[in-house]
């Protein structure tokens, strides 16, 4: 055996790198979220940090239907679009997942890149392309056009999440069901879909979150009437740095936390696979 070579950099520096620098990086990653939450409870008129005092005045202003009417409409639009985008992804991506699981590996790997391509393409470029084509065939920007765009761009997230689960399903389970005389619909309803459910839920969660947050597709495809929440926040930031944006951030972070905790609870047992 060879003598061990002397290390040029001492081992304690590795510990410092991993536990010191790694820990600091983790703090850097999370700190902005904490800063946004604490900022939302300021009693001041400005974004001075640390906040000048504690109050819930910005939340009151945000939830007031008269002072924040536009924001409420934008939030309603965003929720509607996100829900419809999830529905659309279910209709298109889940059947595709089931079909792909039954196909030959070589066929799958030749079709799959096309289905997953929207995830890699900058969505801003897609938004522009969709606007040009829609206008060409005579569609004006609208809520439905935005929903279509979101299904195209985020549907692959549903496909990917569901097919991770589909790969782990034993195909003989569905075969057994068919052999026992179940119709294809019964097999789908009683065997395939329940097994796929964790993947579908994870996909629905991702599509919903991404759609709610999307700017680059909605920027081109939404009309003036269907202002979406992130674009409304963007406008508020650009116009006046309204502190209500802090309260909106607080609400959105709370929503993310709740959804994340629920998703963990629902998906936890199967996630180990």
């Amino acid at each position, binding site marked *: 055996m060879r003598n*061990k070579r002397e290390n040029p*950099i001492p*081992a304690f*520096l*590795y*510990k410092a*790198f*991993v536990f010191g620098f*790694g820990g600091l*990086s983790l703090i*850097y*990653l*999370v700190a*902005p*979220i904490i*800063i*946004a939450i604490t*900022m939302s409870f300021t009693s001041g008129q*400005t*974004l*001075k*940090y640390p906040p000048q005092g504690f109050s819930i005045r910005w939340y009151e202003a945000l939830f007031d239907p008269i002072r924040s009417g536009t924001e409420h409409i934008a939030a309603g639009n965003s929720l509607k679009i996100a829900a419809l985008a999830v529905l659309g992804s279910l*209709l298109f*991506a889940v*059947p*595709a997942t089931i079909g*792909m699981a*039954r*196909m030959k590996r070589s066929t799958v790997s030749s079709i799959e890149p*096309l*289905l997953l391509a929207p995830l890699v*393409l*900058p*969505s*801003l*470029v*897609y938004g*522009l*392309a*969709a606007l*040009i*084509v829609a206008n*060409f065939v005579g569609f004006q920007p609208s809520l439905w056009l935005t929903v279509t*765009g979101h*299904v*195209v761009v985020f549907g692959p997230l549903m*496909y990917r999440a569901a097919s991770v689960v589909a790969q782990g399903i034993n195909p003989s389970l569905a075969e057994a069901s*068919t052999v026992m005389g179940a119709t294809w619909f019964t097999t789908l309803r009683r065997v395939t879909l329940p097994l796929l459910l964790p993947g579908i839920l994870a996909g629905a969660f991702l599509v919903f979150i991404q759609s709610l947050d999307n*700017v680059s597709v909605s*920027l081109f495809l939404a009309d003036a009437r269907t202002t979406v929440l*992130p674009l409304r*926040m963007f406008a508020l*930031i650009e116009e006046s*740095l309204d502190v209500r944006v*802090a309260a909106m*951030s607080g609400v*959105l*972070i709370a929503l*993310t936390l709740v*959804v994340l905790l629920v998703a963990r609870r629902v998906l936890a047992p199967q996630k180990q696979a």
Partner: protein
Amino acid sequence: MKASGFPYVIPMLLLSVAFFATPLAVLIGFSFIGPDGLTLNNYGRFLGDAFNYRVLMNTAKLGLQTVASTTLLGIPIALLYWHSGKTARQVIIFLTLIPMLTSNVVRTFAWIVILGRQGPISETFVALGLAGQPFSLMSTELGLVLAMCQIDLPLIILPLIAILSRTPVQFTEAAQVSGAGPWRIFVTVLLPMMLPGLLAGWILVFASTSSSFVTQAVIGGARNVYVPQLIYREVGTLFDWSMASAIAVVLLLSTGILLVAMTMISRHRRLVGHA
């Protein structure tokens, strides 16, 4: 009897072809259309203009800076995950998912607070006597890189963690028993193993930086302009769709070239790592 799966795939395939591939083809076609038929004029005008050219270079630079800084911070976090027990690993995943799933606009807003004249960075520097008076990092490249790095960091951490979580802890034992120090194990065992994850992360980070319109517009300010804003300006203010298409195609091509370059670098490194 085995049912064929193909009919199930047809709806999504049609959706992809009709609403994704077709618009992209039209976009590329549009970029060659001028007032009098087919032309390369849009590209000539875009690349010939000194301002536009600088914007393109700045965008590539911003992308590379974000990739470099997320890699620099992502690797120690991944290593921290590797050396942690079960509970700590869960915590690290949770702390990565929260910012990732929080709205981009919210994270951008947080950075407005942090980088502002009355924000924590400025206040700390003044309190420590490192700066004479409050300062703002808004509308600076440094401020934008700090924000983009934090916003895109989860995209590089998650692929790394995905690889490490599938690797048994005993994986490095052979190296340890043969007397390799922690740095040697990191460079010769862990880093080569993490490379596919790094590559996946780079692609995600790069794609994200070339679409992060809001962050670039808000934090970069009017002085730092990037390609996404240029595209939006052509569409929203100047109504020149052919020009906007040409810029979009240039953005796609330059992203593609950089991705291929990064893939090749990582392949090369992997060969070196195993040698």
